[in-house]
């Protein structure tokens, strides 16, 4: 083949179309939002630049999911990273942006090196970068090579997706970008990595061993827990959301990994169910995470704040943003009848079915463990978003900047409203959506050469039924109806029994102390303290205390700062970096400056070569 001119071959199967839809949906909404956001935020020149970069970003992602040529895939993959890098460092004046961008692009580039290695190994077998040729070549490939390729792919795509422990860049890069970019990065870009993984494992490589699925499941569960725990500890609103992206990628991968296991165990229906759960959560996460980032963006735009400890009371100043954020928070906490609930419920169903139908007891037990992990993650996520919403929007403002906050302009509100509506309708009308997604995932599972019966898990518009032995059904619409009825009944009760009661506005009760103000409010740190202590074995929190003595006897002021030990960063990355740099510095002694030394190198080289030729 001619490397000087890689040819772009279009690939539009249901799978890539699904991702294309997600990309276009989220990006266009973010673009609408951006229209209001960039106004009087950046200089005209930078505004144009932002527009160009954003468009390029969108197009590169679209190109990645629609190409049938691995080389072109690689090229657009890198372009995607490059463009998003420039969007991360968009506020080039800030040192934080530059550092975050450096971490991001370096990690993602090294990940790409792994992907490239995997592709080249495939190319060696296939003699072409065309996916179809690769697939046929993979059939006759030795298992060892397949395993190697899979590991490379998982490392490569895992880096982009932010799978723990390769997630390091994510909480730095996503918050630094302008919010309409963060929403696309968190909502869509990291999903492209999922696309790559599924595309090359399901469609090209084929699931070769059981441990592949188990590996994915293990790291997925790790990502869920680590992501949500770090998110609980976070006070930077956007960083908190970024950590939740790590968690949700974990949930998505739980579905994908489970379906890999089921494919290997030849349980087609379950494979389709699990993959549908994963893909559905992928769609849902795209929607509610972008919504949350957009809301965080409008908060940042009007207050210049990202630290929750300085916020509070915004629900009165920005009622719409608050309402939309509440939708997102409920959705991401898997609370019915919103969309996050449906996909997590499906994932749990998949695990339950797996526990029923997998032959080995070990696998059954593993399914239970992963279900428990998912439940724990859900609980912690709910706690985290009670914190995020409560501290940010409720009670009394904690700083002056918050008090002059104002509601976002129309285009931003419109974008957020649309997504908020989507969280609701993707939950209530789960039936048809799941119908489509189950066809997509049936297509994916079918490409692994197993016979997939027509598996459609939706009966009617309102009800979804994972087709197991029994009729376990879920109808979010019906649930909504029940909820509304019951709440209405309560309202009626109040109306009937207590129509004449007075409602008086009084200051908050302070045990007789009536000077309550922002300083006596419960803070984000305080809220997360029980979790910090419960997970102290993992977080290893420590304090830096500082006393300012007025005299020997009297302490004027006492301040302490609380830190967590981020073990992956500390013991994996910083350690490795330290070792590498140390090695590099010791290497520098070679170039000591003495010309005699340099001639001696030539001398030794010549001698060595002479001896080498003698042997």
């Amino acid at each position, binding site marked *: 083949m001619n490397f000087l001119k890689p040819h772009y071959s279009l690939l539009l199967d249901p799978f890539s179309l699904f991702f294309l839809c997600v990309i276009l949906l989220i990006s266009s909404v973010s673009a609408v939002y951006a229209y209001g956001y960039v106004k009087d935020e950046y200089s005209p020149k930078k505004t144009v630049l932002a527009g160009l970069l954003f468009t390029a970003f969108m197009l590169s992602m679209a190109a990645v999911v629609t190409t049938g040529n691995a080389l072109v895939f690689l090229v657009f993959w890198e372009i995607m990273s490059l463009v998003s890098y420039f969007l991360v460092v968009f506020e080039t004046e800030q040192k934080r942006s530059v550092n975050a961008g450096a971490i991001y692009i370096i990690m993602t580039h090294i990940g790409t090196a792994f992907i490239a290695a995997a592709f080249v190994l495939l190319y060696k077998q296939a003699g072409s970068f065309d996916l179809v040729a690769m697939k046929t070549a993979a059939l006759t490939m030795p298992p060892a090579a397949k395993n190697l390729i899979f590991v490379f792919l998982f490392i490569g795509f895992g880096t982009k997706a932010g799978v723990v422990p390769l997630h390091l860049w994510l909480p730095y890069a996503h918050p630094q970008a302008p919010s309409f970019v963060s929403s696309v990065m968190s909502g869509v870009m990291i999903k492209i990595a999922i696309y790559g993984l599924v595309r090359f494992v399901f469609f090209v490589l084929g699931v070769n061993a059981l441990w592949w699925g188990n590996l994915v499941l293990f790291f997925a569960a790790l990502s869920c827990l680590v992501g949500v725990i770090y998110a609980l500890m976070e006070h930077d609103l956007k960083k908190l959301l970024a950590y939740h992206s790590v968690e949700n990628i974990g949930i998505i991968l739980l579905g994908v990994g489970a379906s890999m296991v089921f494919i290997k165990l030849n349980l087609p229906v379950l494979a389709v169910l699990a993959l549908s759960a994963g893909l559905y959560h992928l769609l849902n996460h795209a929607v509610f995470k972008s919504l949350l980032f957009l809301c965080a963006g409008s908060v940042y735009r009007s207050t210049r704040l990202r630290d929750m400890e300085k916020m*509070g*009371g915004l*629900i*009165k100043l920005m009622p719409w943003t608050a309402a939309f954020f*509440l939708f997102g928070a*409920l959705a991401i906490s898997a*609370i*019915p009848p919103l969309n996050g609930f449906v996909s997590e419920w499906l994932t*749990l*169903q998949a695990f339950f079915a797996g526990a029923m139908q997998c032959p080995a*007891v070990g696998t*059954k*037990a593993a399914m*239970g463990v992963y*279900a*428990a*992990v*998912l*439940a724990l993650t859900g*609980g912690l996520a709910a*706690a985290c*978003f*009670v914190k995020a*919403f*409560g501290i940010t929007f409720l*009670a*009394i403002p904690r700083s002056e900047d918050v008090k002059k906050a104002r509601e976002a302009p129309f285009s931003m509100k419109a974008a957020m409203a649309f997504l908020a509506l989507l969280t609701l309708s993707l939950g209530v009308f789960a039936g048809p959506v799941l119908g489509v997604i189950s066809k997509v995932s049936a297509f994916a599972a079918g490409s692994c050469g197993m016979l997939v019966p027509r598996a459609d898990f939706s009966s009617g518009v309102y009800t979804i039924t994972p087709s*197991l*032995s*029994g*009729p*376990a*059904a*879920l*109808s979010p619409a*019906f*649930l909504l109806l*029940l*909820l509304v009825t*019951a*709440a209405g009944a*309560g309202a009626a009760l*109040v109306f009937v029994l*207590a129509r004449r*009661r007075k*409602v*008086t*506005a*009084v*200051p*908050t*009760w302070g045990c007789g102390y009536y000077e309550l103000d*922002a300083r006596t*409010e*419960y803070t984000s740190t*305080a809220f997360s303290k*029980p*979790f910090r*202590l*419960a997970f102290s074995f993992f977080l290893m929190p420590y304090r830096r205390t500082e006393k300012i003595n007025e005299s020997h006897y009297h302490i004027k002021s006492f301040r302490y700062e609380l830190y967590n030990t981020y073990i992956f960063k500390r013991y994996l990355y910083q350690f490795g970096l330290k070792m590498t740099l140390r090695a590099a510095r010791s290497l520098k002694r070679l170039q000591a400056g003495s010309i005699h030394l340099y001639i001696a190198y030539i001398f030794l080289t010549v001698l060595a070569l002479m001896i080498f030729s003698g042997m």
Partner: protein
Amino acid sequence: MNPSNAALQVLALVIVSPLISGLIRKLKNNLRLRIGPGIFQPYYDIAKLFSKDENISVTASWIFRAAPYVALGSSVAALCLMPAFLPGVSFSAAGDFLAVIFLLSLGRFFLALAGLDAGSSFGGMGSSREMFLSSFVEPAAVLAIFAVSAAAGTTDPAALSLLGAVRPSSVMACGAFFIVLLAETSRLPVDNQETHLELTMIHEAMVLEYSGPSLALIEIAAHVKQVLFMTIAVNVLISPALAASLWPSLALAGPAFFCVKILLACAAVAAVEVSIAKMRLFRAVDFLLFGGLISAVAFILAVTGH
């Protein structure tokens, strides 16, 4: 399933739910050799609250006003899904056993927000601890649900209520659900309903700012939640179908047997509450993890067919 039956069942349970609290309180007092208030005291309390005016903090927002209704709605909706008196009588088309857990988290979410809304540190502390404990309850609950659903092969509660036999796994699961019950209804050793010392209480601290009708709604929601978990616990152990099959002649065997089971459950709760002391917050976590362990054992037993 017959909607009218199911609706009647839900209505009946909601109406008797305060009675159960009263009953437990009475039993506790008697066990402590006290007389205590009558078993209808909860009804009087609710009536009194409805008749009172309401104070709402100036800092509170619409979240604070909406929370009681959402809480009531979520508890009742969850109750709708579970068959109680008769096998298979529930709105199980709306959702399955897992949905119950998710539904309850809705009410909890809003109450926790309301706790933060007033801006008092008690509310914040209460909601922080409530969310903390509940997030450890969920895995235990889910595993227990898996365990009991394993026999039926589905998480559909209606199908569960048709199972006819008592299995080791269901016994373990029942134990797990009992621990979940204690935690979710803020009873000893996790929480203490009777104290009003703010620093030790959890649920009560969260709803500290409420008064009047709103508080009444929250109380009702709590009662409903309690009866729901009791129903789950007892029906998991001995399903309505089994009960009905004991006296096929007697038409109302199921309902009658259900009442007996509930009474026994009340006795058990009362016995536990008078016999153990409240745990520190982090010991409570261990207690919940113990519950998770039990449900894990139940799950293993279930998937291995016991």
